[in-house]
């Protein structure tokens, strides 16, 4: 498989495309506007520092490609490209990027030994298979858009996909579903304990009512003019301090201040101020 045979196989393809294809002015303008944008966005994918910027580059390329498809009178392909790739696949990428974190950088440590070489080998294998397929493929003579879209573009695409290529489609579909189920199985963890539902929790709380349990949330700690700390109890409607409004841990540790303590501090401070004023007046 030399370069010359590859080129030799591609020449008739190119000439056959050139025979039937013609480009209108609008299409040419569209192409020359979009092509530089796409090239810049594609380069952005390679050179962007942040992963989200790279993802944006891919999105721009995808949408521009979709516009070009539509301009080539393949509206179904163009629109599905946006829905599936831009709307679902890239969105999942972004989702993962966001969960990973804004500033996260790639780890360059190989988790599998020799991963790089195996990947290189497999990549070379895939490339050779693909090149082989492209070179040995035979191209039938193009029939033109009118003949290809007799019943309308989506209808005829459907005929090709679900008629000629239905087996390949089903195989690919099965593969994708298997991959999704595999990912689920691999990441699934069984629950350690039984899930306690909302109703069950509420019932359990009500059941403790007879033993003096409380079904409402506990009162929040006190908020006064000089103190709103966790260790000061709130006052009930009758003016008595509510012990339960101070977190249990603080009370067990004995770190509760008591509201009398707060008022004593305030009293002392006011007394100091008043005395200070008096001394200033005297001097």
């Amino acid at each position: 498989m030399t370069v010359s045979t590859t080129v030799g196989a591609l020449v008739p393809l190119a000439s056959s495309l050139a025979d039937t294809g013609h480009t209108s002015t609008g299409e040419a303008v569209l192409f020359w506007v979009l092509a530089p944008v796409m090239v810049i966005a594609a380069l952005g994918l390679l050179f962007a520092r942040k992963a989200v910027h790279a993802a944006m580059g891919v999105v721009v390329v995808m949408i521009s490609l979709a516009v070009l498809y539509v301009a080539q009178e393949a509206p179904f392909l163009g629109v599905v490209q946006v829905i599936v790739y831009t709307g679902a696949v890239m969105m999942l990428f972004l989702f993962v990027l966001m969960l990973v974190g804004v500033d996260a950088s790639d780890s360059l440590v190989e988790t599998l030994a020799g991963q790089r070489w195996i990947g290189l080998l497999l990549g070379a294998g895939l490339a050779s298979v693909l090149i082989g397929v492209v070179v040995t493929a035979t191209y039938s003579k193009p029939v033109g858009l009118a003949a290809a879209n007799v019943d309308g573009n989506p209808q005829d695409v459907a005929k090709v996909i679900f008629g000629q290529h239905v087996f390949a489609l089903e195989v690919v579909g099965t593969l994708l579903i298997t991959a999704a189920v595999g990912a689920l199985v691999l990441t699934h963890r069984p629950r350690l304990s039984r899930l306690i539902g909302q109703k069950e929790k509420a019932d359990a709380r009500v059941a403790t009512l007879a033993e003096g349990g409380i079904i409402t949330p506990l009162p929040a700690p006190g908020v006064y003019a000089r103190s709103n700390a966790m260790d000061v109890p709130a006052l009930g409607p009758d003016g008595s301090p509510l012990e339960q409004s101070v977190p249990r841990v603080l009370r067990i540790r004995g770190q509760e201040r008591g509201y009398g303590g707060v008022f004593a501090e305030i009293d002392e401070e006011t007394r100091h101020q008043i005395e200070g004023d008096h001394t200033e007046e005297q001097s």
Partner: protein
Amino acid sequence: MSPMTALPMAAAPVGADFSNDTWWIVLIKAVAIIVFLLVSVLFAIWFERKVVARMQVRPGPNVHGPFGLLQSLADAMKLLLKEDMIVRAADKVIYLVAPMISVFASLLVFAVIPVGPEVSIFGIVTPLQLTDFPVAVLYILAAASVGVYGIVLGGWASGSTYPLLGSVRSTAQVISYELAMGMSLVSVFIMTGSMSTRQIVDAQVPIWWALPLLPAFAIYLVSMAGEVNRLPFDLPEAEGELVGGYMTEYSSMKFAWFFLAEYINMLNVSAVATTLFFGGYHAPWRGDFLNTGWWGVGWFGLKLWFFMFLFVWVRGTLLRFRYDQFMRFGWKVLIPFALVWIVAVSVVQGLRRFTDVSWQTLLFVLAGVMVVGAVVSFLIPEKKPPARDEAPPEPFDAFADGYPVPPLPGQVLPPSPRRSLTVEGTAVAVANPETDESTAEDPAADETTAEEGDRG
């Protein structure tokens, strides 16, 4: 738009005929769409505030202009003149581009919505629709999915926690609810045999699809609220949990872009519901002069604002979903339901197309299947709630082998010794270890008592 307007000239059979359109007709239509959307948004904000106010027994905006109609104009002016701030932690380019993506994508949808039948504009007969092509409804879905990028990128680029959470929620929400939405539309495609909006409207002449395809319509109604982040599905901007969600860090006109996009999207999904399920511009009856010409615009508007009212009504009635319930509803109820419905519709349509079974036989057989299904469902014993294990699990010693191991399924750690510590006279608050997660105490605080535990 230029390649898209050129499309209907392909061999595809499309209902609308745009061959008479000159460039200025296209321009008039495009400008009319944008003006209509912008004015409608101003009206929609007033409408929503007024209707919600009436539902809550208060007058609502009533100061500026007649019935307070100029209130939203005043608000828009205020937003325009406010200080435009850019957060220092923001990723500037994406931060600026995100609101534009939102608005741009939301303006795209109305291009393929048929607003009326063919009318004469300055002597040129043309359909009241900017363009139509064989995959117009898919184009609407595509525009919607691009619009989400605005929300997602806006939240990310703000460089702040709550917006990021809002946009993560939004991504998950849109991916799951767009699936259900797309599948609810598939049954319309199957019945019509086309994805062109004009043909779908024309196919609804005897009966609107909302009735024969009621389940699909119901799924669409639910998922359209999810799609535009409205109550009860407004988790990306839940103000009680996330401040303002993805738009927290936006101010002035950039905030207004997001606001505008949200309301235009409401109009969009309402217009899609009108077109696909409510007969588009057709009157509810047939063969009247009210069914011709410019009257179609009136019918379309009425139906559109019916759906807008529905949005406001739902907002005034329902509470926000809890996030896990919301996801469970999308994946475990809506999507399976939509799948079953698609299969049912395709079976019926296949039987009609490829066999000579008459409608009546088909309906009787279907009714029979449903009755049998209902009877069988009564025979299935009710699922009992899983019995609580009466025997308490055997005590698990994490340090049995000398080093700590986590419990396996079925094993339960013994209650923490710190749980039993009490303050004199306040022992009641922790009567039940299952319930005290919701009390004011922080369970994690127990760990800090490890050393000082004896003090109490």
